Structures are given as C-alpha cells and as structure tokens.
C-alpha cells in the first residue's frame, strides 16, 4: 500500500469515527422521556371550554345508561335489586348468573356481584357529577349555561344518592373528585340516612332552578319539573306528607304541561318518548353503548325469541301478578305478552308464561340488544299516585285523593281521564281501603319500572308480600336493605359497617 493511499485511508477512518460519534450523539439528544399522549386527554387538561363542560355533564347522564361490558344501571342492573328481589319478577331459566338467581330467591349475600356493580355504577356517576361540579366554574363560557350544567350534575348526583340511600341506608357522602391515589384519602365512612337525605334535598333544591323546558337538541336533560318530581318521591319516602303534597302540587300546577298519555302503552312507545307524561327518563338510543348495542337489556332478557325457553327476566307467579288485572285494564297487555305474532312465519306464537313487554321494540325484533325504548325514571302517573298517597295518609281518603287514583284507573281502562266514569271510578273508600287501592294500582302500573321493591319497603310490607311467592320464601326483614358490597368492606371494614342480617 502506497503512502498516499495509506493517508487517504487514515482520513477515511477518521471520518468514520466522527460519523460514529455523531450518530450516537444525534440519537441521545433528540428524544425526551416524557411523552404527551395524542389519542386521549388527561383529566388535568380537560376543562378549558364550555364544550368541555357540556361533555363532562353528558358523561354524568351517561352513567344512567352506559357501562361498557356490564348491564347498565337503568338498563337492567338496578332492576335486579328493585324488581327481581321484590315479589313479581324472577330469574328465568336463561338467567345463568348464580348471583342473579340468588337475588331472585332473596338468598343473596354481601358477595353479590349485582349489588357490587350497582354500588359501583352509582358512585361512578356521583364522581362524574363531582368532577363536573368542581371543575365547570373554571372553564370560560356563558355563566348561565355553566350554572345550568352544574345544576344538572347536582340533579343526577341527588338522583343517584336517592337510589343509594334507599338500597343501603346511610352511605358515604362524597362531594368532590379525588385528589390523590392514596387509599386512605379515598375512603369515607357511612353517613347517617338523615345526612344523605339532607344532601339530596340540597342538590335537588338547587336543581329546581333548572329550565322547565329545553330546545329540541337538549330534550332529555333534567328540568325543574324533574327536580321537583324527584323531591316528591324523596318526601314521600321520608313520609313527609306536607312537603310531598306541596311539591307534587307544584309539579301539577306549575305550568309544566305534564299530563297522562291517553293510551297507557304510549308511555313505552319509542316514537312518543319524552312526551307529556315523561318527566325524566333514562335516554336509550340504538348503538349508544357501542356497535350493535343500546345499553337497555330488557328487550333481550325479557324475550328470547319464539321459543319455549324461559327468558332471564320473567314473571314470578302468573296467578299473583298477571291474572289480577280486571277485564279491560289495558295495562296488562301493555306490560305482559302471552302471545306474539311471529313475523317470519305469520303465525301467532304462544309463550308458556306471559313475558314482560314494556321495553320491546316491535319494529326491531331481530336486534333486541339494540333497541332504544327509554326507561321512565319518573312518570307523571307516579306524581299523581304519590300525591294521592300523601293526601290519604295526612288527610284521609279525600275526594282529591280519590280523583287522583281514578285518573290513573280511567286511563288504564282507556276512558277519558278527566271525566268521572261510574264503571272504573273508586268511590267512598276509607283511608285504609284507599291505601290498599293505591298500592294495588302501583303494582299494576309500574311493572318493570324499578318501583316495586322501593314501594314495598316504604310501606313496610316487603316480607309479607314477597313471602306469598313460594320460590321467594327466604325473604326476611334483612331484605329491607341490601348488603354493603364485601369488596368495599374488605378495603374499609371500619368505616363501612355491614347492614343487619348480612
């Protein structure tokens, strides 16, 4: 090798060496360890604009109807507790979850997954409301809208605490979003029933200042009428008759335009949702819970197609709950179906037992898990019957109390609602008789509407009524409350003492 070649080579080698060092250095300097996600927002970065605030409140509402991978709160999960664990509903053969069967036979314990999921869903919604209430004040935007959004969140928070306090008694009151992941800071001990109600009434009182109506794109949001109507139920549950009567009259006479549908079945007709009788409903919509699912399960679990196989949600005792409707009472065939026309064969199919019917969308029998019938959280009929109950309890069986019950009955029998009718009207009932009448009407009126267990507990008749159903004779006084989920007590055994009997 000549000298010049050697020099050239040496130069090249130096170059290579420099490239080496450079390439290493380049990579060292160009990348930071802290990466910013581009496909999701962190909580800290969420609340900037009014749209963010709106979205955070939409999420609060969504806690009623959406929980990916689970039955949704008002789409079925509450139903296990408030209906299947009452007298008229039962777990059918297709109910494969032992915990669901346990609720049906009232043999559930603190490990019940349904009870735990309901607890989780309720508090998840409360947390979303807390996040919205804590953060909306700091976004830029219209103060009126911001206040409205906060009050909507308060309405849902109160609604959820109202479920919780009735299901479990005094529950922990959490009013702010968590600021740390330390478990100690996330714990909170059970408050008294009184404290929970005080909080509920406070939130609902704030929510009374909500608008009474919304524009077309906002229909479905909580209104002042809804806040007052939930307050009616709160006071009724507390046996605070004067306030029940006061609030119910505000709802009835407040110019909100509420009225009963002339046809009972219309209350569960998709085309009539958010109508004059619907004061507040959990809004379900096809594909809402993801592709091919709406979040309301009743259509799929009450009707499994034209087969003899018993669905998961079924009437417990036909004689006690189906055969009781008088001839002409339209509520029976709006709530149950004994037969159904099979569109594929053109023949009328007869089921071994009548099936629940209210949430089945007959225009969409094939995609039953993707139907969009709303779940009525409070209907005007409930306000009327609540007022009748409160008047009867405070003042006795007055004419007004009679009239309120009769409006419900006339509608049930497809008679003009406000015109006295000798064939269906109740007349001259005593307080005790009218009390029984109201209870009977509620039983027939609110099938699959999440009312029955609350009613029976409020009346103190849970054990006697449920015992009438043979398969449910394990019922006892403990069933007036549900157990605090064991998983919660594992983390905080001290702050969360268990309810009696569990």
């Amino acid at each position, binding site marked *: 090798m000549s000298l010049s070649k050697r020099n050239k080579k040496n130069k090249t080698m130096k170059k290579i060496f420099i490239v080496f060092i450079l390439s290493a250095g380049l990579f060292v300097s160009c990348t930071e*360890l802290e*990466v910013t996600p581009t496909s999701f927002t962190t*909580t*800290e970065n969420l609340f900037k604009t009014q749209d963010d605030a709106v*979205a955070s409140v939409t999420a609060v509402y969504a806690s009623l109807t959406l929980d990916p991978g689970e039955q949704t709160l008002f789409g079925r999960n509450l139903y296990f507790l408030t209906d299947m664990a009452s007298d008229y509903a039962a777990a059918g053969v297709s109910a494969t979850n032992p915990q669901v069967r346990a609720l049906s036979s009232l043999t559930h314990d603190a*490990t019940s997954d349904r009870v735990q999921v309901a607890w*989780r869903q309720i508090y998840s919604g409360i947390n979303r409301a807390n996040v919205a209430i804590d953060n909306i004040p700091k976004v830029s935007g219209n103060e009126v809208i911001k206040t409205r959004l906060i009050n909507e969140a308060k309405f849902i928070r109160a609604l959820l605490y109202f479920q919780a306090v009735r299901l479990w008694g005094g529950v922990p009151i959490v009013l702010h979003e968590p600021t740390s992941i330390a478990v100690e800071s996330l714990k909170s001990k059970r408050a008294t029933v009184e404290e929970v109600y005080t909080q509920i009434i406070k939130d609902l009182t704030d929510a009374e200042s909500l608008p009474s109506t*919304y524009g077309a794109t906002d229909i479905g949001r909580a209104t002042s009428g809804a806040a007052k109507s939930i307050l009616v139920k709160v006071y009724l549950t507390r046996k605070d008759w004067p306030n029940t009567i006061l609030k119910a009259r505000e709802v009835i006479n407040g110019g909100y335009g509420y009225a009963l549908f002339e046809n009972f079945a219309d209350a569960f007709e998709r085309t009539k949702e958010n109508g004059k009788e619907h004061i507040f409903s959990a809004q379900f919509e096809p594909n809402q819970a993801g*592709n091919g699912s709406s979040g309301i399960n009743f259509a799929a679990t009450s009707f499994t197609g034209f087969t003899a196989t018993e669905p998961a949600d079924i009437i417990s005792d036909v004689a006690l709950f189906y055969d009781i409707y008088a001839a002409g009472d339209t509520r029976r065939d709006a709530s149950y179906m004994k037969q159904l026309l099979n569109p594929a064969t053109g023949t009328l199919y007869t089921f071994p037992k009548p099936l629940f019917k209210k949430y089945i969308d007959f225009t969409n029998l094939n995609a039953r898990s993707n139907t969009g019938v709303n779940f009525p959280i409070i209907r005007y009929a409930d306000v009327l019957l609540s007022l009748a109950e409160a008047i009867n309890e405070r003042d006795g069986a007055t004419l007004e109390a009679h009239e309120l019950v009769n409006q419900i009955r006339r509608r049930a029998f497809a008679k003009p609602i406000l015109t006295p009718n000798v064939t269906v009207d109740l007349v001259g009932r005593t307080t005790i008789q009218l009390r029984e009448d109201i209870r009977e009407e509620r039983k027939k009126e609110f099938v699959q509407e999440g009312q029955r267990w609350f009613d029976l507990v409020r009346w103190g008749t849970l054990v006697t009524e449920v015992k009438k159903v043979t398969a449910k004779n394990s019922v006892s006084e403990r069933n007036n409350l549900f157990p605090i989920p064991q998983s919660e007590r594992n983390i905080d055994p001290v702050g969360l003492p268990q309810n009696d009997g569990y």
Partner: protein
Amino acid sequence: MKKILNINSWLFILLLSVSMNAQDNKLLIQSKLNGRVVDEVTNEPVIGASVSIKGITHGVVTDIDGKFYFQTGQKFPYTIIISYIGYKKKEVYVDGSPVLVELKPDVQELNELVVVGYGKQSKKDITGSVVSVPKENLSRVTASADNLLRGAVSGVVVTQSSGSPGASSSVRIRGGSSITAGNEPLYVVDGILIYNDNSNASAGVSNAGASVNVLSTISPGDIESIEVLKDASATAIYGSRGANGVIIITTKKGTKGQDNISYQGYVGFQKITKKLDLLNASDWASLRNDVQASIGQAPSFSAAQIEELKTSGGYDWQSAAFRTAPVQNHQLSFSGGDERSRYAVSAGFFDQEGILLGTDFKRISLRANLERNYSENFKFGVNANYSNSISNGLANRTATSNRNPNALTTLLYQPPVVPIYNADGSYNLNNNPYATAVNNIIPNPINDLENTVNETKIDRILTSLFGEYKVNKEITAKVAVSGDIINTKQNYYAPATTEAGAATKGFASVGNRTVSSVLNENTINYNTRFGDDHKFSALGGYTLQYTQGEVVNAGANTFVNDNNEFNALQDGVPVKPYSDAFESVLKSWLARVNYSYKGKYNLTLSARADGSSRFGSKSLWGYFPSAGFSWNIIDEDFAKDLKGVDDIKLRLSAGTTGNQEIGNYLALSSVGSVNYSLGGTIQTGLAPTRLANPDLKWEKTTQYNAGLDVSFLDRRVNLVFDAYYKKTSDLLISVPVPLISGYASVLQNIGGVENKGIEIGLNTENIKTDGFSWNSNIVFSANKNKVTEIGNGIEQFFPIVPNSTLLQQQPVTVKVGLPLGTFWGYKSDGIFQTQEEVNTQPKINSLANTRIGDRRYVDTNGDGVITATDKVSLGTSQPKFVASFSNTVIYHDFDLNFSFQGSYGGKIFNALKQQLEISTLGTNASTALLDRWTPANPSNEIPRATSSPLGIVTERYVEDASFLRLKTITLGYTLPKGIASKIGTKSIKVYVSAENLFTWTKYTGFDPEVSTFEQNNLYPGIDIGSYPNSKTFLTGINVTF
C-alpha cells in the same frame, strides 16, 4: 480483483470437480488426492489440520485455505484420518479426488463462545445461566420460532394457546413473575430488542378471535442459534426488560469460503388428534325428552322416533368441520463469503391449511445478511428481514360470547338431529327447530366456518445496520441502528347467512395497525490481559429505543348482498369507527465488567439504567445491577484426582431486573368518551377513567441463582444443574380502591410474587461406535410460584375473565400464598339421592329449587348453606414440573430423532366440558350425560337432566392436564457424499417426520396444551372454544449445492 478471482476459481473448481469425478477414478494408477478441510458448522477452512492415511505414517498439514494435497503409492480406496485441536477426530473413506472433509467442532471444547447480551463470551468464563437450544431442535419443522424452544431448554415452558395455524403461544422462563404486566421474555433478534406482544398484530377488528403470533413472522429456517438467558447475571444487562428472561435469536450469516446454495423443503398433512365424544341423535332425543319432563312438558320425541334415529344415525357436525389439511414449506438460501465480505440470502415460503374449515396461514419471508470488512479496523453490515404473512383464523361471535364464543363451540352444541346440508347440497340455514331464526336465517356453524372472512395480513420489516470500529487491539466500538416495522391489516366479513351477520344483514370490519420501533445502540468493548493470570473485559454503552404506533378500524353492516365483503364499507350502514396512537421512549446506559483469574475464578458485574416514558414523572429512571461468580473447580489441584470427571464448575449469581411491559401512558390520568342521547341524537360525553400515578414504575425482580456444571466419562455425560429463587416486588397491580371514589382500581407498584425452582439439563452420549451413535438430552424443570402480596390489605381477588359465563363463575383467583392461575370452586359430593337429603343437607343458596338428582357440594365452612365462601382452591394451571427427553440415533447414513415431552401436575379448567355437560333443550351434550341421574339410574356422578344451563366450577371440570407426548419423530437418510456429488450436490438428506404422534393424558378435552386466553397471566389454562391441536406428518428434503 484478487478476491473476485478467488471466488470464480473456487466456483470453477467446484463445477469441474463435480463433472470430472467419474473419469478420475478410472484413470488413476498411483493416487493423487486433493482435499479441503472445513468447519462443519461455519464452513470456514480449518488451517493446520493434520491429514494422514490410515495405516501408514505419511501425513500433511492443511494450508491457509484449508487445502491439502497427497501423492501416494496407495490405490484408492483408502481411509484418511483428519485431526485438529478443537475438533473431533474424523476418519474418511475416500475412493477418489478431490475430497471435502467437514470437521465437527468438539462442543465440549472449553473455548466455545456463547452469545450473551451485547456480545459473546467464552463458555468457561461465563457466570450466569445461559443455555443454547440444541441444534437438533433448531432443525425441527415448525411454523413459528417459539416452537423451537419447546422442551429444548430447562426452565422454559412454552404453552401453545391454540392449534390454529400461525397462532400464538406463551413462553415462560422460570415461571410468571408478574400479575398484570407482561410475562413474556424479551427477544433479541440480531441485536434488535423485541417484546413479543401479540397485540402488535391486532388491529382491534371486532370478532377477530385468537391473535396471530408476532414471532411467526420470522422463518425458523433462518435461525442459526437461540440462547436462553435465565438468571440475573445474564439478563440484568437488559435492565427493565430482563425480568422474564431473555431469548437471543441469531440468524444465519455467511462465512468465508465456499458459496453454498441450499434448498430445504417439506410437504405433509395434518389431522385432528381427537374428537370429543358427543351424544348421537337417538341419545340426544332421549335427553331432550328428559329435559322436557324436568319442566313438566310433554316429550319431544316418541319412542318410535328415537328408534328410527338409532338407524338413521343423525348428523356428525364435528366430522363436517375438520379436515385433513396440507402443509408445505420451501426455503432457498445462498451463503458464502471471501476474505472481506460475507453474505447469507434466503427466501422462504410456508403454506399451511388449518384442520378446521376456513383457516390457513401463509408466509413469504426474505432475508439478507451482509457483512463487509471495509478495512482491517472497520467492518459494517446489514441484517434485513422482510416477511409477509396472511392468516385466516377462527372468528369470535359478535354476541357477548358467553357459553358459545365461536363457530367451533356452536357446532359442538349443534343437536345431532339437525341436518348440516339441504338435499341439494347447500347449507341448511332454516331447518332447525331448536334455534330461533334471525331475519329468516338459522345460522349453520359449518357455513360460518367456511364463509366468514377473518383475515390478518402482517408485513414486517426487521432490519439492522451496524458498524464496528477497532480503535486498537483492546478497544472496539460499535454503533447499530435497527428498525422493526409491523404493519397489520385485518379484514373481517360475516355474510348475512352467518351467526355474526344475520341480525344486521352482513357485518364488515377492517382495521390497520402500524407499530414501528427504532433502536440505536452504541457500545464500546475493552478486552485485555494483565500477565497470564488476569483476563479483563469491559463493556459500556448507551442505547435508545423509540416506538410509535397507530391504529385505525372501521366497520359497517346492512349490505344489499355479500358480494364485496369487507371492501366496500360505504355500501353499508357505518358503525362507530376507532383510532388510536401511542409512542414510547426508552433510554438506557449499560455497563459490564468481566474479570477472570487464571481461568479459575470468574467475576461478572453488570448494570443498566433505564429511563422509560412508561413510568411516572417521579420515577423515570430505574437501575438494575447484577453480580455473578463462577469457579472452575476442575482446574484446582485437588480436583485432578477426581477420576472420570472432566469438568466441574460452580456458578453463583444475584441481581435485579425489571419489567416495564405495562402499556403506555398508564401513569397519566385519562378521560374517556361515553355517550348519552340528548335530543334524540347520541352526544359524546367525557368522563374521567383513570387517576394519575406519578410514582408508577417498573416491576422489580431480584433473582438468586446457583448452578453446577459437571462433565464426566470423557465428556460423554454432561450435567447442568441450577437452582434459583426469584422475588418480584413493586408488582404493578390494579389495586382495588374504594368504589365510592368513582374508580374501581388504581395501577400501583404494590404486589409481590415469588418463583423458586430447580432445572436439570443432562446431555449424554449413550453409544458411540464407528457406525452407530446414540445421544440423548434430558431437560427437567420444576418451578413453584406463589403470590406474596396483593396490596391494600387485600388477600384475594377474582380476575375478570372476558367471557360472561366464565366471568360470573369466577373460576380463577389471585390469592396470597397460592400460585397465579389458581382455580377456585366448589368441591362436589355426589348427587342428592333422596328428598330427605335435599331437605336436610346444605344446598347451594342460589339454586333455590334443588331437587333429587342435583349435584351436592361440600359445605367447607360448615354454616349449613353452600355459598361463595365454601369455594376452595382446585389446583393451579402451573405444572409441578415439565420435562423432555430427546434422542438422536445415527446408524451410518440414517439418523433418527425423537423427542418426548411431558408436563406433570398442572390443571386445566375445562369450561367446554362443563358447558357440554349442561343439558338444555336446544344443544348437544357430552356422552357423559348417558349416565345422568334418573330414578332408574341413581348415578352419583352426573346430575339429572334440567333446562337450567348453570355452570358451576367444581373439581370435575378442573382436570389434570399432565401429559406425556411423543412430540416429534424424524427419520432421515443422508446420501453418501459420493452419490450426492455425482448428482451435482454437496449433500442431500431426505426425511420423514411426524409431530404429536402419540399423547398419553387423562385430559378429556381436545388437547392438554391449551390456553384460550393466550398470553394472559391472570386466567391461564382455561379451555373454551380453543382451536384443537393437530398431528402432523411430513416428508422433506435438504439439498446443498
């Protein structure tokens, strides 16, 4: 120019010698012998080897090209003896010139180099537990590289998750050390660090079913060696990714010397190993009558109808679904090199049909490995691999897949009285009174299998460029830049006639996922000796890996017809689309020091610092040190007297490694979208979904290892023994927090798991005579796994199994003191035989209507009722030990390889069996139900027929998964060199081979090697709807030109 001449002349000589062979033989009177001696493995010339003719003293030595030349009075034929230090002495029978002699390296040679992290090390100096996969395993016929590890190395358990072509398996080195983070080892392919996350090959298309194995993108035929790094001394150099062990894969490189062209190919077929015993038509009809009776309904079949079914026989849905499926593989490789350049180039094609209709796997792979000595001090090279694979897998159902996750289970449940085909040969899509029609279609699972498209196409480029610069004799610097790009496209289409497409008149979904990772590694090596006694080497480096990924998928339904399948989403009604993006950065400093004194005492210290973007802002950097010590006892004076012992080495090591396979961004809080309908339209809401944890960091595993390597009887028996203890702390667990916080859990470093075990590798040369040899390799490993802490005072939790039926049963638990994957359920206690028993004995509380003939469960806590608190551990999916016994028998030109594999003490929750033993009105059942309880047959095993499909986890369904299997058997014949060369080749080998030929097991499912939920650590060993394993029969040929 000189080099080119060299290559050309070699080619010329090669061709000439091949063509002239025949003539030479006849013409010779006094023989002249031209020959060349090369290393059998590397093909490098062996310089200075001595060659002599047997029986006479005349001998020569090979030159710099490994060539030698003889002139002798001996006539052909005669035998020559070739010997060289480091190689096994060889005798070759020659009947003509020239001759090529391949010497086999003496594997026991102490200077053998072993691939370790970021370099190679002399086997004698190694302090850690590093094991190479035997060559016999590497030549095994398989679709995916991870299968080469099966039964090859102690301490490595490979579990196939399904028999689907191209499907994934899970690899565990020394047990699972993590609960929720990844447990797969780190793979290092030609220096590129890869975590084998199968989700990288999933675009998230709905219903896609079992995932495709990312490692299947590497052609097994390209693999030169696989090393398994097990203890901390070996793996700590990989820091936060070393906790689950490291597998180093090196692909074939060219070598100086001859150019080789080789072809490897095989064809064969596969068959199902077994079918499940299901009821025939008449037995099913009787069962249905009993179910009807249990709910007070009239029988569905008259006695005459049942009798008629006995003769007509019904329909065998299983047989209609399975087929004998062909498999073929072809690989063509070119390799060689000269003084300054080396190359290896290959192309491969693999094509496998699945034994289940509608499934297959195809792969094209291309590889080019090039290396060039630019100068004496500098060399550079490239390793490039491209592969394209297409697989069609078994699709999942759209429904929330409870007892029936896919078409395989649907067909097993299909009543045997339902015809598969119509009279005209088309699929029966309406004649089935036991199912409900949807849009006038009653889905037919065979039609579903055949016509559902579930395609995954993966393009992968795995490439690295490196330059290596020798600063001086002692210092070498290396820079490598590599890239790994995985581009996955998934296509799914369920026609309107299928289960998943009927309700929506067709369902189409497409998705794309691209993940690319760039890695830059800069290392400096320092090697020196101080005097004769002190050997010292050091390694330092800085590396950086940047990974980013993007995912998008979209779907539509309600198509006019099925013509365009997934290629015209615009013709249907769109469903919600999805897109996502992520990135991660890992920066690392690494260092290692090796010191060896007199070759007797060796010390290795290593450390790595990893900074990962996945960790929380308060703990971005982790530090992972290790120390290893080994002592070559044999070199001590006192050991000289040990007769028959050739080697004894003691190894001790301790160190800390980490696991950062926790996913991206998990330290940050997040907001997710949730919908609500307002004004009749769906609005997007944003809800908090995760709390931030700025302290989030890697999982930390501290491992102690003691090993002993012993060779005796002239190195015919070699034993490697290791015992280890691995303690993992700071385990990432989604710790349940009070639900009143609005969150169910928070990811925290809180748990602990320990693994301890022993490993034995025993390699023996049982018989060694002239024409006959028999070698065996026994591998044994026993691992004990235990969860030591879950955190927040919680002792037990039940992982959410993504299957609504199993989720409710809660079959698996994580409990302090028990191994991961522990099955949890009731102990059963026969059947209620009398009403007296029903009235007085404990009953399961949720089955309010317990009757005579129902199963009885044990009231373990004695409170009079059967509740969830009576559930107990029913065993774990983790085996007590696994072992394999591999043999190579060579008789002249024949070689026989066979390998047994076994596993003992593991359990599988056979959820499919549980579901098949549930009677319903509309589904077929296991033949076990023939023995069901009836008043006339008071069975104490099988309950009465009911229509309540309620699955209960009991020991009946948690089955012993122990097995012994003749995993592979291969008989090969290598043509004598003379004949091979006459037809113009260097060597030809033909073989026949069978895989999974025999399996001895008590497991009643399709196959005891199963894990429906794939790589998941929380609920391994569940069998429901997994693609069954197959037997494979192959015949193949390997030719080198």
